[in-house]
């Protein structure tokens, strides 16, 4: 295959992609005798799309036959990983749904969580995150091995690769479909910038920072891991290397296309969708429970959500120049957002400002400090209490451990930042150690507050919200409150507050629990 340079890459890519996909590679890569017509179906499978992106990526890299051969053992390992991941999903997804459902039921009642249900939900959530992160880490390790076989040019191309949305449609659409799509784009005025690029440098910068920070906390598969180490790419790579696919690769391809006999892909996707929907609903309930809306507030919010939904529909179906533009939509949404904020009291606004979607609500939402409650020490207060009694050498170890935990949670510190944080902790511990017990008891909360770590991700979310508002774009209030899923949650809460049936049921449940307590 001739070597494709970076500059002429896109022309060659388009031509080669269409040709290869239509005539040669697709039938070969999909040995289950899937004709190209099947892929032109409106319901293109994820696997087909992944295969096209994989091909696009390979063409971008222009791998040689030798390179493809060198990569094959790594692909085998990647396929094993995919099979293992699917097996783990099969084991954990049903449990996840069960735990979330139990948690949601208690969340709806707003009477606190039983420790067992709360622990289980948190556990399966952590397990899910761990499975995702471990898979990403393992894939990235394999990606490092692939990296060693690439040239500098290919490495650059791999790093800069961005999947083209039109790659799939270019490869699969008929001529009339392409024409129709082009006409539609022209009608919609496709010259407008993409969704997340509104020309505001500060906002773009904040969004980019947020994405980078997120990547530094959660392991994300890189481009090679995503496009080359997927079973969907295996077909192309074996074809390129001119070798037969081993059994593990066949099984991985089959697994990614249809799942396994004991956990079909349809079921896997359904479970995933259910778990995500449950998680979203739990987020909404957490917010509603933490806000303690009155009936009047709920009615007003539902009215505003209706308006917001109508706006969304209008935006989706409008045609410029007579229809609604994105700018009009933003302006109208901002008006609705302001109306929603007017309906809230200052306390609720404060909670909303600091709200972050969560599965298990934080202590201040779930169980705020109560009147007359003595034991309300924060984690930081306890840490300080321990550290002040320890010798200096031990304090250094404690600081190291704390910093390590913070880096794990919030992302790595820069060298200056790390030193600043270390000095702050050291000084505060020294100050606390110099105090007598009574003085420390009176000042511990203030000292702990001073060394409380800040979550940079949350700070960025706040900054993005502020910048969006400054640009007359809807912010977090609209994001968290003005959507149709929230309307449903609010409707149920309204029924709970007013409906006789709901209150009777709640009362009956309470009495049953009370009877057992009396016993």
């Amino acid at each position: 295959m001739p070597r494709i340079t970076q500059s002429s890459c896109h022309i060659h890519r388009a031509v080669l992609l269409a040709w290869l996909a239509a005539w040669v590679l697709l039938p070969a890569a999909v040995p289950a005798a899937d004709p190209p017509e099947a892929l032109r179906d409106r319901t293109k499978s994820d696997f087909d799309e992944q295969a096209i992106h994989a091909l696009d990526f390979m063409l971008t890299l222009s791998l040689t036959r030798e390179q493809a051969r060198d990569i094959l053992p790594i692909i085998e390992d990647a396929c094993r990983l995919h099979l293992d991941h699917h097996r783990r999903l099969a084991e954990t997804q049903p449990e996840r749904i069960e735990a979330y459902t139990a948690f949601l039921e208690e969340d709806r009642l707003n009477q606190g969580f039983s420790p067992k249900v709360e622990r289980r939900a948190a556990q399966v959530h952590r397990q899910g995150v761990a499975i995702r992160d471990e898979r990403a880490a393992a894939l990235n390790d394999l990606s490092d091995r692939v990296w060693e076989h690439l040239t500098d040019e290919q490495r650059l191309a791999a790093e800069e690769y961005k999947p083209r949305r039109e790659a799939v449609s270019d490869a699969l659409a008929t001529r009339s479909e392409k024409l129709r799509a082009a006409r539609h784009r022209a009608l919609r005025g496709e010259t407008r910038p993409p969704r997340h690029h509104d020309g505001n440098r500060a906002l773009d910068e904040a969004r980019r920072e947020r994405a980078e920070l997120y990547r530094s906390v959660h392991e994300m598969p890189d481009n090679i891991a995503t496009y080359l180490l997927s079973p969907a790419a295996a077909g192309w790579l074996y074809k390129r290397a001119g070798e037969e696919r081993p059994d593990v690769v066949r099984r991985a391809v089959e697994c990614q296309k249809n799942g396994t006999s004991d956990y079909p892909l349809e079921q896997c996707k359904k479970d995933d969708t259910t778990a995500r929907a449950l998680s979203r609903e739990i987020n909404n309930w957490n917010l509603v429970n933490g806000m303690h809306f009155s009936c009047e507030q709920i009615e007003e919010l539902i009215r505003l959500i209706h308006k917001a939904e109508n706006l969304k529909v209008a935006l989706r179906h409008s045609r410029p120049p007579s229809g609604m533009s994105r700018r009009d939509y933003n302006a109208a949404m901002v008006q609705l957002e302001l109306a929603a904020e007017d309906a809230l009291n200052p306390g609720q606004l404060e909670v909303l400002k600091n709200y972050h979607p969560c599965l298990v609500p934080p202590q201040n939402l779930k169980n705020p400090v109560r009147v007359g409650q003595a034991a309300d020490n924060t984690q930081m207060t306890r840490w300080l209490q321990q550290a002040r009694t320890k010798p200096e050498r031990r304090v250094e170890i404690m600081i190291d451990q704390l910093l390590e935990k913070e880096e794990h949670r919030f992302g790595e510190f820069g060298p200056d930042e790390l030193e600043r944080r270390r000095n702050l902790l050291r000084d505060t511990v020294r100050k606390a150690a110099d105090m007598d017990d009574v003085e420390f008891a009176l000042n511990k909360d203030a000292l702990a507050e001073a060394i409380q770590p800040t979550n940079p991700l949350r700070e960025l979310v706040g900054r993005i919200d502020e910048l969006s508002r400054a640009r007359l774009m809807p912010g977090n209030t609209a994001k968290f409150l003005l959507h149709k899923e929230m309307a449903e949650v609010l409707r149920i809460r309204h029924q709970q507050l007013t409906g006789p049936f709901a209150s009777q049921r709640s009362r009956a449940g309470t009495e049953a629990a009370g009877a057992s307590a009396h016993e």
Partner: protein
Amino acid sequence: MPRGATRTNRSKTVHDLTRRAFLGTLSRCGLGACGFCAVAEWDLQRALAAERPESGPRREVEFFETLPGGAVRCGICPRHCVLNDGETGACRSRVNLGGRHYSRGYARPCIIRADPVEKIPLGHFLPGAETMTVAVGGCNLHCLYCQNWQHSQARPDKLKTFDLPPDEAVEAARQKGVKVIAFNYTDPVAFLEYAKDVAVAARKAELRIVAATGAYIEPEPLLDFAQYVDAITIGLKGFTNDFYETVCDAKLDGVLNSITTIANKTDCWLELVNLVVPTYNDDPATIREMVGWIRRNVGCETPLHFSRFVPMYRLTNLPRTPVTTLESACRIARDAGLKHVYTANIAPHDGANTYCHKCGASLIQRLGLKILENHIADGRCPKCRSPIPGVWK
């Protein structure tokens, strides 16, 4: 040697010790060990007692009666515990030592904290002021839902404590820059002698004193203490004797007496708090009866806080109080004519905010224990200039 012979010899060795003999030996060993441990424990306790016989500063209780045979009858709370020499009262903090009645936790607080005054809870007393809160172990009530049971249901000398004589307590508050000393978390009735001495010293230093109490106390000691107190929050935990006996191990009459005493015979600013426990004291009819009594005997301007129950101590199998129950309790109280009714332990909730009872203007906006907005000027509503009952400066 044939294999069978070895097996026979070995089994014979094992069978020398019969099961009966083995169990007998084992039980004798066990009994011996138990006996040894008991003697050792007794010896250790005796040694500790000899080393520290009710060590630490202690102060004689002012209200008690000497009985024949070296016994004393405590006169602080309506229990009137009769204590023989060496015995401790139901509050775990007063002890008869050689026929004299002593307060055990004197100057040994187990909790010292800087808290907002809203944590007492006090809604109409210097909003947002920081307090130095002090608590000594022990309590004369034994509430099943106590959220500080680790401290209140323990002997003061069994807890980790600070050494803080009254003068030093006042000095610590001054150093911290707080203007209010509070007695909260455990009932000051259990450490009345210390609380009074701190209050006297605080009065000299022009600091304010506030207290949160279950008010299960005789009028005489209460009046003696209250003369040094600026504000008091009384927990009216229920309104039936049955509730008080079942849940708090006390009697309702004693508490009602204290409330009327404070309201009618002292200058203390009074607020009341009622923890609404599902199925125990959330009956609307009882709440109606309670607020009616408050209106008649205390007045309609006394703030009343309905507080949310959270499963604690021995009532962990009850759910939290539904927000609707608290809201309906508030409605009942307002309908009965009480002017300032609040919800506590729910945030953010409109019920936690202060509104003018005349024009309905928003006066104080709260988020939990935090003050977000305070519009009260010179103790009056900024809109209609009606005086708002309370201590505002």
